[in-house]
């Protein structure tokens, strides 16, 4: 950083770079939650899945030396959590919101339990693509070092939107999410569809966790996730269950999350902790602004318990 003194210009640049860096886990978790909710079920436990994915990914990457093996392990672990959630919810009279809370606590607990020995060692990082090769400003170049997973997540958002719109699987998920009775009449098994939608959603959340521990911040510790999994759930509501909107919303949230560190980098330290609250305040503000007490939210899957 000895080249140019770009002063306050550093703030927007750091926010853009931060938005890309910070948004990636939001993208994966919100796409996973979007898929699960489109099938008519809510998984509040993705916070626990995210943390466990971060731990499992880091541990496997450390032992195998391959960060991609870590990502695969995190996805597998996330899928197991999704299957557990889906199975518990398929039991009669079991409430999906309560199961989510239980698995949020269980996932975090078991991640801390097995993650203790991995706080010290250093695992290999995921590679980044230097998209900022054309610029001389080191801050901008650093901001544009984009991780492969961000690109994968962005493509996935469009792929999922296409899946919902134009494929058989997408239609099945939507039918099950909008009306259990209609799905049964079509000969579909709603529980089975929801089970695998939740499993796939869990796998995506696990990948989001692996990004946290293997790229940014890039180490495993017990404070690795601070509610990203939960914010992603709220973000899906704000994005009106549309995968592409999830991508934009994730970038917005990433920018809000990058505000504190960005201001700190130019020497603003007053109210440092308050900037940490920015993404939560933003989430809450958006929920308040876009919800309605009298009518169901437009675009909501008909069978979703939180909007019924």
């Amino acid at each position: 950083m000895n080249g140019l003194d770009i002063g306050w210009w550093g703030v927007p640049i750091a926010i853009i770079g931060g938005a890309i860096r910070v948004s990636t886990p939001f993208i994966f978790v919100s796409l996973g939650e979007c898929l699960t909710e489109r099938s008519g079920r809510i998984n509040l436990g993705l916070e626990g899945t995210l943390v466990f994915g971060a731990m499992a990914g880091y541990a496997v990457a450390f032992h195998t030396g391959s960060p991609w093996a870590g990502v695969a392990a995190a996805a597998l672990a996330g899928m197991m959590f999704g299957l557990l959630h889906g199975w518990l919810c398929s039991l009669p009279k079991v409430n999906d919101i309560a199961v989510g809370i239980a698995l949020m606590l269980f996932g975090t607990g078991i991640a801390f339990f097995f993650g203790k020995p991995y706080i010290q060692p250093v695992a290999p990082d995921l590679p980044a693509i230097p998209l900022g090769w054309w610029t001389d400003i080191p801050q901008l170049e650093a901001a544009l070092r984009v991780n492969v997973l961000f690109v994968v997540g962005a493509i996935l958002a469009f792929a999922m939107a296409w899946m919902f719109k134009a494929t058989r699987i997408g239609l099945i998920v939507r039918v099950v999410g909008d009306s259990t009775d209609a799905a049964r009449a079509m000969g579909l098994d709603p529980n089975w569809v929801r089970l695998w939608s939740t499993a796939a959603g869990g796998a995506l959340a696990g990948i989001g966790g692996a990004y946290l521990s293997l790229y940014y911040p890039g180490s495993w510790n017990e404070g690795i996730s601070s509610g990203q999994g939960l914010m992603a759930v709220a973000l899906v509501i704000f994005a009106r269950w549309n995968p592409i909107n999830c991508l934009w919303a994730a970038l917005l949230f990433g920018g809000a999350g990058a505000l504190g560190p960005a201001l700190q980098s130019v020497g603003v330290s007053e109210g440092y902790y308050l900037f940490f609250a920015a993404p939560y305040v933003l989430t809450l503000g958006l929920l308040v602004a876009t919800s309605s007490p009298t009518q169901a939210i437009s675009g909501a899957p008909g069978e979703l318990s939180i909007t019924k």
Partner: protein
Amino acid sequence: MRRSEAVALPLLALIAGLAAFGVFLLLLGKSPIDFYGYVYQAGFGSAFSWENTLSRAAPLLLAALCVAIPARLGLVVIGGEGAIVLGGVAAGVTGASFPGLGLGGIALMAVAGALTGALWIGAVGWMRVRRGVNETISSLLMAYIAIALMNHFVESVFRDPASLNKPSTAPLEEAYRLADMPGMAVHWGLGIGLVACIVSYIVMERTTWGFAARIVGGNVRAAQIQGLPTGRLILGFTALAGSFAGLAGMVEVSAVHGSANGSLAAGYGYTGILIAFLARHNALAIIPVAVLLAGFEASSGLVQRRLDLPDATMLVLQGLVFVAILVSETLVGRFRLFKPETWVRA
């Protein structure tokens, strides 16, 4: 008989959860018998361990009420942790700002803590009523905001310059520390928690307000058709629930820490969720369940040292018990034993 099912099923779930944790320990090559032996020894084995357990039960009783009361109105509020930490900060700052009032100072701190908690969780109820915002998500988001606010207050606005290693508000004077209850080394926080549980039980089960609240929890539309003020009921009872959580923060500051600092975010709010679910949101049932879980927390240090387990051990145990209690919901009404009317055919 229905009532005995309401006791038997959670008990069965608790035992199943503890057994599942035993299997988990066996898989790790640890002895579950040693584990539960140490839990008994350190949590319930002697007068000293009982005193330790009961002291820890105080904030848990209040935190569980913050979940159980809204649950009777059909609301799943899980962000009690936020009201606890902000209630603690409010109580700590109030106590340090108004010295020399004796018992009146303690009362002032309690009011400050309860009022802060009531506003915080009441806001969750308000967002639900006025904007239709899901209370589970909003309350948990508010908990993260509360912890950020607490850090801000404790580390800059209200920081005592003398607190170097651990940023805290100014220390409370000796008269503002909650004393022990007569005859035992357990602070008055336990008494406050027990009274809160009993009062909540009476309000929820024996008053018109509680009855109206339970109707709202059973069927909002039916409640509206009956002309019940559902909005005001939700606001009032979420505020009441929050005031108990805020009081928990005040108890921790006044009885345990002596000033407000980061230790307030100890996870009582989250343990409270499990306690409320195990107690099936019954305020009186919260008392034994909270004492039991407080015993587990009291023993965690000893258990971890003796069996060489990480600090998250109790979180895993709580998670398994939580899953077991939810699975048990599916068994409600399945056992003929609890339905005398079906005995004849058997």
